[in-house]
């Protein structure tokens, strides 16, 4: 790493007495310390590089290595097993189901959550007072901790207490324990995911809507375009980048899903509601199968990298098209 001075030279022409070889070494160094880029670099960059390398890059690289061992976490990994961890992961129906659940979350987000968020965003896009209040309300579920949201909904879904019990009580039905029924549990979880994160997409869409110039909309209105035509042919096409971005965040969010699952179902019934991360936690960390867990983590990283690359390609193409 070679340092060069940017716009100003550290040995400045205004002070020729320092530039000459006659000046003693230390004062010059003192001056460099005060004005040169080198000390700043040496002081400012290493903390970030160190922390980032030690706690992000290094662990990730290590998991590539550990993934090839059968390792319970005690001592150094010694039992090299080649690709068998990966084979086991691919053949595990629970892991496949977890991956399927992640994709289900993305699908529900794309098919239900994003359209609703977009619709609400367009309704509250003018910065009127009432709209600001509605925006704040829609955003509240997003700012609550996942754990808290999970517990509240666990209560609402509880067959003896809560909303399900109350509604069934009105009709005189026997309340089901939704979270204990395979099939239903995942659907119930998806409802919570939609409820929790809709405000996030809404905030993105409101920001995206503000980039659509009102002049264009006004002139279309003068030309006699209906509200629906304006939305369909002007606003939505112009918001396409934000919608893609929102979709990207859904994918990314889906592969982080954990905190909601633990209080709601813990992955049960019959391990049917795991996400990739809750699978990783339950079958890797909790049981100290660190070699196997590393292999699963590695698969997750690869998925993330692929998603990122796809997204960059997609956006770049969008940018070029415009």
């Amino acid at each position: 790493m070679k340092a060069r001075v940017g716009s100003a030279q550290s040995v400045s022409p205004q002070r020729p007495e320092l530039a000459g070889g006659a000046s003693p070494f230390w004062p010059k160094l003192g001056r460099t310390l005060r004005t040169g880029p080198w000390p700043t670099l040496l002081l400012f960059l290493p903390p970030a590089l160190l922390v980032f390398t030690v706690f992000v890059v290094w662990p990730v690289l290590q998991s590539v290595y550990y993934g090839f061992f059968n390792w319970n976490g005690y001592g150094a990994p010694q039992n090299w097993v080649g690709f068998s961890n990966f084979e086991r992961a691919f053949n595990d129906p629970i892991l496949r189901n977890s991956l399927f659940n992640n994709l289900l979350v993305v699908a529900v987000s794309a098919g239900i959550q994003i359209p609703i968020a977009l619709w609400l965003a367009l309704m509250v896009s003018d910065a009127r007072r009432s709209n600001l209040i509605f925006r704040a309300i829609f955003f509240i579920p997003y700012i609550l901790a996942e754990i808290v949201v999970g517990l509240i909904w666990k209560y609402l879904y509880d067959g003896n207490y809560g909303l399900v019990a109350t509604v069934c009580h009105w009709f005189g039905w026997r309340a089901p324990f939704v979270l204990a029924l395979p099939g239903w549990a995942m659907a119930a979880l998806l409802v919570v995911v939609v409820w929790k994160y809709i405000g996030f997409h809404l905030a993105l869409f409101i920001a995206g809507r503000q980039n659509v110039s009102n002049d264009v909309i006004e002139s279309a209105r003068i030309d006699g375009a209906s509200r629906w035509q304006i939305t369909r042919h002007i606003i939505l096409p112009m918001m396409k980048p934000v919608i893609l971005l929102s979709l990207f965040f859904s994918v990314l969010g889906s592969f982080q899903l954990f905190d909601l699952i633990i209080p709601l179902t813990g992955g049960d019934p019959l391990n049917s509601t795991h996400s990739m991360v809750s699978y990783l936690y339950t079958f890797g960390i909790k049981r100290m199968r660190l070699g196997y867990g590393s292999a699963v983590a590695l698969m997750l990283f690869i998925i993330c990298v692929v998603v990122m690359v796809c997204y960059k390609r997609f956006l770049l193409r969008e940018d070029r098209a415009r």
Partner: protein
Amino acid sequence: MRIRIPLYAYYRWLLLFLAAGLCLLPIWAAVIGGFKSSGDLRTNALGLPREWITDNYLSILVAPRFWQMLGNSAFIALFTVLFTVLVSSMAAFTLAHLRFAGKRWIAGYLTLGLTFPFATAVLPVFIRVRDFGLLDTYWGVILPQVAFNLSFSIVLLRGFFQELPKELFEAALMDGCGYLKIFWRITLPLSRPILATVAVLSLVGSWNNFLLPLVTINSDSLYSWPLGIMQFQGQYSTDWGRVLAFVTLTMIPAIAFYLAAQKHIIAGLTAGAVKG
């Protein structure tokens, strides 16, 4: 046309109120649930309590354990914010204002973290924290949180720093002002809004973090509140009145903070959206 506009207005209001109701209903049920008796919770989830029970709330508020957990979370959050802001602003400053060989490479390296979210890396991070002997310490939570905040914070800050007027730095350098002084006296004071955004985002992230403390902290006395609330729920699993009171008490600071810092939270989200 005359008829259609009010029609749209009615339908719009109806839908907005419906959506707002659906957003608030679970929260309302939790807040009011903390005041209810067990019988009420069975049959009356949404209405006001038939008799108001304050014991659920009071018994939590007088428990030192509750305050200890909030204190632990506050300590972790405070240092996470402090280090995130300090370390990332220093790195962003060098990447924005200094010229040196390998700058692009370093900038690219430090933004690698945007690729994978923390949750996917929890197992390797757990191994790392354990190998450093940081299990069951505050630092085992703080340092990885800072590390995983860096990429995003640096992207945000660097973008902002680069927008600051160049003339200011040139003038300062001409006057013999060192880079350290420029950083401290010019860049940081001018960047308060973005620093606030970074601070708020890392504060919320740390305060709500569940997964990392879950895998690194064992001792009850170090529990952060998300761990504590899960333990509490395990203890009083069917005593929903107590659990909901606990839930509500942890929601209050979150919502109050959100209302106070709304501007910065939304700014952080949308800035992230632009930078990707």
